[in-house]
């Protein structure tokens, strides 16, 4: 814990010797198909006018780390926050190419996707150390008590990385924000719809709070 605190402190000092809160790495982490890339696209569309990632209903669409440098957002008070947005592959404990076959992919394509997905998970975990703050994007319609969610959040906590939990897909009837809040009572949880932009203004305000 103490080691993690000093590591984070030195990391921030080396990047930011004058204490100005700019050029952070903002990571989007979470399980596959939670909506990380959709949120990354929403942020980039809102502030840069272009998308950064491809999205799909088939899990593990993002299999490599995608970085968008120099994303600047402004809040209502006119303050500016600049960061590099890091869209990461979904973290999973199992990957079966046969699941991709069921989604209509051909065998070779499915095997290739599974192989790339395993590498993506490893990359995502390795990148944890270089994040300055992280949005954990969860599917608000799914059980939040999965060990992957707990492991991601626990690792961020151990590294003293500030976390915001975005419970995505609140536009769907099955979404239950209260369950997500009950699962992670010590964290700020915000229900959003990255696809339709619901609560996105509140989300941007919380980014400023997170970066303080």
């Amino acid at each position: 814990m103490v080691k993690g605190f000093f590591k984070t402190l030195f990391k921030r000092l080396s990047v930011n010797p004058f204490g100005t809160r700019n050029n952070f790495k903002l990571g989007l982490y979470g399980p596959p198909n939670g909506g990380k890339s959709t949120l990354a696209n929403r942020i980039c569309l809102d502030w840069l006018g272009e998308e950064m990632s491809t999205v799909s209903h088939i899990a593990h669409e993002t299999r490599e780390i995608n970085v968008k440098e120099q994303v600047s957002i402004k809040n209502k008070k006119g303050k500016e926050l600049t960061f590099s947005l890091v869209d990461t592959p979904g973290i999973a404990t199992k990957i079966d190419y046969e699941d991709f076959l069921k989604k209509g992919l051909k065998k070779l394509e499915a095997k290739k996707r599974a192989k790339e997905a395993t590498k993506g998970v490893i990359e995502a975990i390795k990148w944890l150390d270089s994040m300055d703050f992280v949005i954990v994007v969860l599917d608000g319609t799914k059980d939040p008590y999965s060990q992957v969610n707990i492991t991601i959040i626990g690792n961020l906590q151990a590294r003293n990385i500030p976390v915001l939990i975005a419970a995505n897909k609140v536009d769907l009837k099955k979404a239950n924000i209260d369950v997500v809040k009950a699962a992670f009572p010590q964290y700020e949880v915000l229900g959003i719809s990255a696809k339709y932009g619901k609560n996105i203004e509140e989300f941007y305000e919380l980014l400023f709070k997170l970066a303080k």
Partner: protein
Amino acid sequence: MVTFQFVPYAEIENLTSVKRVNKLLNIVKEDKIVIMEGRLSKEEEADLIEITMEEISPWFKGIELSVIYPEKHRLDSMQKLRGAFAHLLLGDRQGLTIIGPASIVKKIEKNPDKIELFTKEGSSRYRKKVRKKIRNS
């Protein structure tokens, strides 16, 4: 048939993180479900996922993992203090970790004080078939 293997904390207590993770993973790769006393550290859990991903192959599709651990914010100060002493003297033996091969365990649901483990139907027959196919190829 599903086999459970109990791993007491004493068995992994003196191992390094890598050896600890590998020991658990080797049991899982023998198609057994590990029930471990205590829990891995958060970093070890991340290592477990990382190593699992490195080992994924046609006959090993990953793991299902679940941990039951007393939630600190639900404990009173006395319980926290007792827990801290026990941790100091005996190591982190609180809680229970379940790790199963994804080819056998469909999902583990935690809600949040009980664990429900769902197995895949006909999984052992399927695994034998896959292994035979791999040996023949």
